[in-house]
């Protein structure tokens, strides 16, 4: 007996021993919480499906934006600036101007179309080939096609570049189809805002769904929690299995949403390929990359953890042991 209650003083494990057992305890509680989910299969599967579908929607919208960006990259030439040079500009001056413009930070590429080349193209495209031969001299100016860098492709930056280029003394006139570009950008912004709004609402729903599921689990374990408190369990000890449950929900919900988005992209991929072939485009629908899938799962875990943390911090403190 005496070695059980040595002088009535409580023997405590050393701090080092407790630190060493901490990761083992965490592992046991994580596995134990997985076992708890396994023991309530219907609730678990339903919750995971709701989470998976909730996360699949913003992930699908993300894919839409990603693919739309890919398409818009192919339209970058839309922000190309056309510089019509003065008729008096010599070939040498034009070459000097090209060199100067190429040094601009916002310029990715400069293409020169000489007056002669322009006339040749005009003859072919306009159908006035024969008539144009009666002209005394070439009425078309030499032209520079300036492609801005990706950074300078947005409406405001492209407009600023146009103003700068138009000031060059060899330039007669500069042109940029800004209205079209502005509309495209406004549409892209609107879509991005809608995606963000919908994503935020769905993320909030994930937090609430997990929070409510954990709340019900806590209420189900009310008596056991009270007993644990009675024998000296801290709130953080009691919270841990519920937080791990939240993490599991996040992992499985995230994996399910990845599968759902991948299946959807695979299904739509065929239809989009057929459509793009009709437009002589080689556009291919892009699915989730490996890193995006991992990010989606990680994001799901964070959301589920936030939901479960809110729930445990609200409800576990409220449960107090009763001697009756």
């Amino acid at each position, binding site marked *: *007996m*005496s070695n*059980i*209650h*040595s*002088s*009535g*003083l*409580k*023997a*405590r*494990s050393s701090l080092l*021993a*407790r630190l*060493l*057992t*901490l990761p*083992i*305890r965490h592992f046991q509680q994580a596995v134990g919480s997985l076992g708890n989910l396994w023991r309530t299969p219907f609730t678990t599967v339903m919750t995971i499906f709701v989470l998976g579908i909730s996360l699949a929607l913003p992930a699908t919208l993300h894919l839409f934006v990603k693919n739309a960006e890919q398409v818009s990259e192919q339209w970058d030439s839309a922000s190309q600036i056309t510089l019509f040079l003065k008729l008096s500009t010599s070939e040498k001056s034009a070459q000097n101007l090209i060199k100067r413009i190429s040094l601009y930070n916002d310029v990715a590429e400069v293409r020169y179309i000489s007056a002669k080349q322009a006339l040749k193209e005009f003859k072919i495209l306009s159908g006035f080939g024969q008539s144009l031969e009666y002209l005394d001299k070439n009425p078309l100016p030499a032209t520079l096609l300036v492609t801005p860098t990706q950074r300078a492709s947005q409406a405001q930056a492209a407009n600023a570049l146009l103003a700068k280029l138009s000031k060059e003394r060899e330039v007669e006139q500069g042109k940029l189809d800004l209205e079209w570009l502005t509309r495209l950008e406004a549409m892209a912004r609107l879509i991005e805002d809608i995606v963000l709004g919908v994503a935020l609402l769905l993320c909030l729903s994930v937090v609430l769904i997990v929070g409510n599921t954990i709340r019900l689990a806590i209420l189900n374990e009310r008596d*056991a929690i009270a*007993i*644990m*408190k*009675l*024998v*000296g*369990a*801290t*709130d953080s*000890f009691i919270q841990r299995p519920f937080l791990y449950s939240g993490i599991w929900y996040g992992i499985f919900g995230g994996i399910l949403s990845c599968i759902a988005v991948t299946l959807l992209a695979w299904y739509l991929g065929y239809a989009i390929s057929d459509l793009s072939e009709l437009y002589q485009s080689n556009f291919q629908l892009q699915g989730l990359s490996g890193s995006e899938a991992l990010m989606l799962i990680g994001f799901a875990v964070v959301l589920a953890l936030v939901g479960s943390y809110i729930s445990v911090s609200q409800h576990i*403190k409220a449960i*107090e*042991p*009763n*001697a*009756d």
Partner: protein
Amino acid sequence: MINFNKVNKTYPGGFLALKQVSFSLESGEMAFLTGHSGAGKSTLLKLISLMEKPSSGSIQVNHTELSDIQYKQVPYVRRGIGMIFQSHNLLKDRTVFDNVALPLIIEGVSHSEIKKRVATALDKVHLSAKLKCYPHMLSGGEQQRVGIARAIVNKPPILLADEPTGNLDPKLSLDIISLFEEFNAAGVTVLIATHDLGLIARMKYRTLTLKEGTMINDGIVDGLQAQGRYDEQYS
């Protein structure tokens, strides 16, 4: 070890459960707490185990002042008190081993140490053979002994028992009380709340008697006194 100094406890609604209660229980002492239903026995135990806070007065347990204790400190104080209840308070979905091991798991004791200490505690209450049983597979007396094993497994300096023999026959009641005597002999402070005056009379330990929240007697009660007090209380 346990010091009450002019403790009052008023529940919401104005019910005065304890009035100016003062007593001191020294380290290694064993005592009974008695009184009729509603006298304040359970309230007194709840105050010691921090399930309730006093309305006024001072309570010291293991040299810790409980009246102004922080919420975060409560679990650590409870680890120094073994608690036993009439309703056993066992986790129904866990085995006897898991139930008894719970205080040690909470403290972060290593698995090998847990196995050793649970085996020793179950041996003390003669339940070594029931290690893998679930509570519903045990009799009332066995469940009570599991509760006792859980209360002593982390070697607390104080044991509190609220009607530990309430649902047991006289023979089992004596077995349970003799277990408490064993722990007390090893230096544990034991406080047992009971209204079984026959049991108190047989044991001849210090007895704290409560009536309507007031401490009316503090001393050893013999058989005749016990009978007299029984008549007084229940007539």
